[in-house]
């Protein structure tokens, strides 16, 4: 049951200098990966950071421009066909057949994966129960809700009991409750020994991963367990509560030691240069100068702070979905 305590000699995925170019665009730039087995490993990054391209290279859909990559001990893309039976892949977009019913979709994929008749009936029944689709068997996949589609896609991707599951932004079109359920299912799979690589742009999802890689413009800019990343952030994090929040912000903007400022309701969240002496005092002085009443507090970094720090403090660039509730319609 204990997933983390089952380290295998061989990592599920190991990549060295994985690179992919599309013409002039460098989509993935010398990425090194070592993903242990029976863990959930996350790719966090904004759109266009190379998450999908990396996942597609790992399952043999795209050939790397350069670099080497072993998936479950087999070289990719050379052994891609062999890995089809061991790897499950869930595409970003719903890719089952919308004009087939739930049962027909699962039956088709079970046949394609070469399951025997008995295995087919057993597995399909099992998956339908597990992913709460039993009452939808005769419904066309196209008429399912976002969450149901997601569960169906996961059921389909796990029909052949893959050792490694690659999930490309699986929850991007799903409501928060369905996302929570979905992650519960992932942890169940991991407890049975499956390795899961999941890409996301949700901070709360990234925080749930055992290990995390932050990608930015094709480069791997930070890597490690989320907790460690937050503890070892390369910045000072301050939270500022002020009466006139706009003026406070204005006072901080343009200061060289202030790397990034973001507003959270009535507070400001500021990342300052690491190792800055008397950070609180300097900010207090600045605000006083601007005639703003403020309370300043040094806080623990959130994963979003890690993300902002890792991607180079580019406050003008779109950061991924700030947090779960910011997104929860």
């Amino acid at each position, binding site marked *: 049951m204990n997933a983390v305590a089952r380290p295998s000699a061989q990592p599920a995925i190991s990549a060295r200098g994985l690179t992919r170019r599309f013409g002039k665009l460098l989509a993935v730039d010398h990425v090194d990966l070592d993903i242990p087995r029976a863990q959930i490993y996350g790719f966090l990054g904004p759109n266009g950071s190379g998450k999908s391209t990396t996942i597609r290279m790992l399952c*043999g*859909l795209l050939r790397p421009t350069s670099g080497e990559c072993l998936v479950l001990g087999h070289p990719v893309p050379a052994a891609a066909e062999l890995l089809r039976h061991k*790897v499950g*892949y869930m*595409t970003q977009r719903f*890719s*089952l*057949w919308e004009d*087939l019913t739930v049962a027909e979709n699962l039956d088709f994929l079970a046949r394609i994966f*070469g399951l025997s008749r008995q295995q087919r009936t057993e597995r399909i029944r099992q998956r339908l129960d597990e992913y709460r689709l039993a009452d939808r068997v005769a419904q066309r996949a196209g008429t399912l809700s976002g969450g149901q589609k997601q569960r169906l896609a996961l059921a389909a991707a796990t029909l052949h009991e893959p050792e490694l599951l690659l999930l490309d932004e699986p929850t991007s079109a799903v409501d928060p409750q369905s996302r929570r359920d979905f992650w519960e299912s992932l942890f169940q799979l991991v407890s049975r020994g499956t390795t899961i690589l999941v890409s996301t742009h949700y901070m709360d999802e990234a925080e749930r991963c055992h290990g995390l890689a932050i990608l930015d413009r094709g480069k791997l800019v930070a890597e490690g367990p989320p907790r460690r990343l937050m503890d070892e952030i390369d910045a000072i994090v301050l939270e500022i509560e002020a009466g006139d929040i706009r003026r406070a912000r204005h006072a901080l903007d343009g200061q060289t030691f202030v790397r990034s400022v973001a507003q959270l309701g009535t507070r400001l969240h500021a990342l300052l240069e690491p190792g800055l002496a008397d950070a609180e005092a300097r900010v207090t002085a600045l605000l006083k100068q601007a005639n703003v009443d403020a309370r300043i507090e040094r806080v623990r970094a959130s994963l979003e702070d890690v993300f902002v720090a890792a991607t180079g403090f580019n406050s003008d660039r779109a950061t991924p979905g700030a947090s779960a509730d910011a997104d929860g319609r």
Partner: protein
Amino acid sequence: MFARILAIATKEVRQLRRDRLTFGMIVGIPLIQMLLFGYAINFDVRGLSAGVVDEARTSLSRALVADLAATGILRIDGYSSSVDELRRRMRTGEIAIGIYIPADFERRRLDGDRPVAQLLVDGSEPIVESIARGFTAMPLAARPGIYSPRRSVLEVRTEYNPERRTAVQIVPALIGVILSMTMMMFTAVAIVRERERGNLELLITTPASSFELMAGKLIPYVFIGLIQTTLVLALGAALFHVPLNGNLGALYAAASLFIAATLALGLLASTIAQTQMQAFQMSFFLLLPSILLSGFVFPFDGMPPVAQWIAQLLPLTHFIDLVRGIVLRGATLMELRVPAEKLLVFLAVVFLAVTLRFHKRLD
């Protein structure tokens, strides 16, 4: 392997059954084409409108006009005062043929060497021109004093279609044209549709091989093609009394071969096209030369060598050879070995190209 092909074929059939429009096309296209081609295409042209300029105005000149009208090919549509006016009427499209009887008609008649009258023919329409030329050879009813019946050197005996009905010539070949139209469209969109809907990315990460995927997509449509073949044959027999002189089994064998070849060609288009629109355009691009060069309308032997080479590359050419041979001339497949083998080679080459071109990758 067969289990996977069967799984893919089953999936295709299920999807097809739910796609009402495509399903309608399977029956609708043969039906409509059959009625259109069968009734509208008619090389035994009748009732071409003709204008007359009679400068002679004798009883004999009037008799000549009456004789021409009596053939049924012409329908006299008014008299004009001059050739210029005839030309003008032709330019407006009012008449297709002008009959000009000159003032010296009686003298020409007596001379016997010179033609007595002139036909002005609208050369912009291909069939009209050749019909009108037929008049010069047409034995008009003997009328002493005007012209004597000439003796033909040769006598024509039309085998396999003694009544010289166009429908008999058209309908069997129409099977090929209809199959070309529908089959190519079905498969041309087969892969592109899955790519557009996002299914392809999933499909190529399964263990199904390119060959299995392509074969699974092709096989269901072979049966649909055979249904269409049956439909056209039955309609041809019921509406136009087109006979089936050869062996039905041989016909189905030839049709299966042709259907598979056309489907493979559609799949090839599908592996090249990025969108369904492009796939459609590509299949259309191939359809027109198929109809024009295959011998469906114009005799193959009459085409210049380059056109004949191109035609050799079109599966429809060989199928029309086969289908006319089997349905009308009652030939056996052994006797039609040559076109059958060419189709087989075509199918093998194209299917190989499809399997090689279809990569299980996105780049």
